[in-house]
């Protein structure tokens, strides 16, 4: 079955991400093969991050990264951690770093940004840092190599590449929403790709696709990349997240959800089954398909192992309301006269009450509470069209 323009990301929204990843893995792999044939160009730019998202991609299960990236072959023009040394290219069958010896403008990353090499999909991992260090240049907290003897800032590279790329995909919390480098107290002006591009008045051809999470989930990311590499726009919500993977909260399908419904709340961190809400779990305010797909080939997820969901996909992570992490979230307003303690006490008669609480939480979410808390501007409402 060929992939149609009605991309599988739409199906994912209906059938569940885990199902689609399994059922369509052959198609997804074929996309990467088609990409190779069409020589679609992908550049993976690392800014202020920790390479954790790159490492996360190695945990992709189906399609596994090697099949995908080997199929991509030389179409990945630059991906620093996974390129072999340039003198070893030969027939190793891996990404060709492609450096030539004399002219730095031929370095693929710089050629893509400043030269004439095409860029179809730009993946950004890590936060752009827009601040100016004392005694330094704007963006000087992150230098990405040298060109013709001059240092090149990551922020400048981002602007040039993003203006050129058909799709920009922010993989991971740092590039999607600023993440930990942009946490309160940071000195570097780290921010999201969307914000950084707005500040530089750079417009992109399509809405920046955000794949939040610390790290980004590899399976969701590869499915989304397969879609944009085909030139298909995934359905995005108002802050750029593919709806296929970010339309439900972690809490909605939490493995401990049954305990919540019974009012069985964990009081200690090594409680193997109780709901983690009262310990500080951020699952109820954090959108992501973790509870559906789990992590590392379905091995586990944070709310299964404990101690809780940390909210690592929430736009405000690591700042409030995701932190203080060990503080119970106050999703249920006091004026409703009900709180989680009451539910715990009234577990035996709680069936009706719980439905009521859910109605409340859903309404609060519906008002866009999550986004309003961020202090970070929403991206344009522009929905990528088919």
């Amino acid at each position, binding site marked *: 079955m060929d992939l149609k323009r009605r991309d599988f990301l739409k199906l994912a929204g209906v059938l569940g991400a885990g199902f689609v990843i399994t059922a369509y893995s052959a198609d997804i792999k074929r996309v990467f093969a088609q990409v190779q044939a069409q020589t679609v160009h992908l550049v993976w730019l690392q800014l*202020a*991050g*920790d*390479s*954790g*998202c*790159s490492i*996360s991609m*190695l*945990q992709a299960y189906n399609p*596994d990264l*090697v099949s995908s990236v*080997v199929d991509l072959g030389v179409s990945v023009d630059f991906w*620093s*951690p996974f390129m*072999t*040394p*340039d*003198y*070893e290219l030969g027939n*190793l069958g*891996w990404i060709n*770093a492609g*450096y030539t*010896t*004399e002219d*730095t403008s031929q*370095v693929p990353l710089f050629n893509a940004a400043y030269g004439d090499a095409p860029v179809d999909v730009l993946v950004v991992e890590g936060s752009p840092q827009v601040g100016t*260090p*004392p*005694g330094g240049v704007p963006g*000087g*907290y992150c*230098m*990405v*190599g*040298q060109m013709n003897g001059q240092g090149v800032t990551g922020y400048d590279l981002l602007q040039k590449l993003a203006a050129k790329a058909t799709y920009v995909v922010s993989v991971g919390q740092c590039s999607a929403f600023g993440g*930990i*480098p942009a946490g309160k*107290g*940071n000195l*570097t002006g780290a921010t999201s790709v969307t914000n950084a591009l707005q500040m530089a008045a750079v417009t992109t051809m399509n809405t920046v696709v955000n794949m939040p999470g*610390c*790290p980004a989930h590899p399976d969701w990311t590869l499915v989304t990349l397969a879609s944009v590499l085909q030139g298909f726009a995934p359905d995005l919500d108002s802050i750029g997240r593919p709806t296929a993977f970010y339309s439900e909260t972690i809490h909605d399908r939490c493995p401990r959800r049954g305990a919540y419904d019974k009012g069985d709340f964990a009081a200690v*961190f*090594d409680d*193997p089954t109780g709901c983690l809400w009262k310990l500080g779990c951020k699952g109820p305010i954090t959108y992501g398909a973790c509870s559906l797909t789990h*992590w*590392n080939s379905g*091995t*586990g997820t*944070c*709310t*299964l*192992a404990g101690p809780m969901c*940390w909210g*690592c996909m929430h736009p405000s992570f690591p700042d409030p309301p995701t*932190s*203080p992490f*060990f503080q119970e979230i106050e999703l249920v307003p006091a004026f409703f006269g009900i709180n989680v303690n009451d539910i715990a006490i009234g577990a035996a008669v709680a069936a009706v009450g719980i439905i009521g609480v859910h109605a409340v939480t859903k309404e609060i979410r519906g008002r866009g509470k999550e986004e309003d808390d961020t202090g970070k501007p929403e991206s344009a409402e522009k929905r990528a069209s088919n």
Partner: protein
Amino acid sequence: MGVTVEVDDTTNLVTSAKCSAVMFRGFETIVLGRDPRDCAPILSAICGVCHSDHHINSVRAIENAAGMTSYPGGYAFEQTTIPKNAVLSRNIIQGADWSYSHAAHLLALAGPDYELYDLLQVLSQSVLITSYADLLKFAVIPAQAYMHQLITLWGGKTPHQRASIPGGNPVRPTSDVIEQSIFKVSSLRTILDDVVPVVWNFLTADAARLGSLGPGPGNFISLGAFPDPTTANGITKMPLVLPRGVITSPGTTPSPFDPAQMTETIPYSWYDQALSSDVIGEVTPKPDMSNPDAYSWSKSPRYQGNPMESGPLAREYISGIYPKLGQIINGIVPSVPGLPLNPNGSVFDRLVCRALELVVLIGSNNTTQNLMVLGQPLNLSLVDVLNALNLPTVGLIQTWLNAMDVNSPSCTSYNNPTSGQGIGLWEAPRGSLLHWISIGAGKVDNYQVVAPTTWNVSPAGPLEGALVGTPIGTTGTNSDLRQAAWVVRSFDLCLACTVHTIDAKGNKRYLRAG
């Protein structure tokens, strides 16, 4: 991360080198003013490659500040009130983290430097591996994935398991989780049993050349790893499986570690030069790029004022495991004087210790394949080597799994101290890690991290010294820098270890690492 080397035009040897860390994120200011328990999930993101180390060590620093843990015997032992199960599960997470990192470095990152150790030729006879891509698909990716899955069983997800919390680890061991974990370990063991003897034989055949390449300062540091709660003293006095210690001049015996001897100097770093070089109590870094001598965001950690090499070689050397292996080999092949082959360390010693540490953690079932040294048979298999070293053939990780108290608690209660200071000592795959926290009014009022890679790549540090004297080719192509790249990569730098030449022309060469 960039490396610039200066080359003498007549001898074609490196005369000086500068390692530049070119990204600053400033974690130490991001955690200020927060709840102490919030540090670990934030500091985890210092590194996404050694992703569990910063998390666990931050928790350890906080437990020390809260009086739950201490370091009796002058830092030689550890005492804790967290349950034995939590000590073991942190060891397991840590062991899995090292194992994935070592396997990925040895095979995928350093492997291409050595034509993959002729693995393709050897393995293609028994396994369907005929290309680098095959090796990645069938050995490297599964190897690292098994270890990530193992961490996920105990930590929820990986990279960035954030399960460890002050007071313990939340996953109570069940026989199901333990069985699944043992399966992950034995799956990696199967791969390593095919791969490690081939890598060993390749490296030891080339020992003379690799042993003279990239000598370090000859000073080594290990902050110790894997407290053992299974001795008669239980959690009240845990020895370290890989002990803490320092070697302060080449070829000497290890001496005890003392944190008061540590400093972080900044003469070549982009910080306000008025800052103190103390680690404990140091003020938060102030970036300042106007320092004309500076070329890196990395500070320079020092012990008694000297640069120290850190990593698997330092750990296995200080623990005595590596020298003991040297004695065993010397008894069979007298032309091998002992290990480390080079008392200052070398490319050979670093790579072999990485492989050795992997086998120590994962164990081996290989009783048949004869290991070689310098082309001569040792008449030892991997299992024989582990037996001779008095190490468990199932590997350390499986012994920790077997030592768990099934269905018993893995957390104890913890209360934030209103004030106090704590230190966390730990080892990441690629070096020594120190976290120090100061708490005032229940909030973080100071936090310092000495990150693993900075020991090796700091300005005027071991890597810069190791590059001096490295031969550089004269063809005008990137392959001129091949041996320099081997030296750089042997240290297994953080931020992935790819070293790429960006400008190989002229006598100033620039390598990009990660």
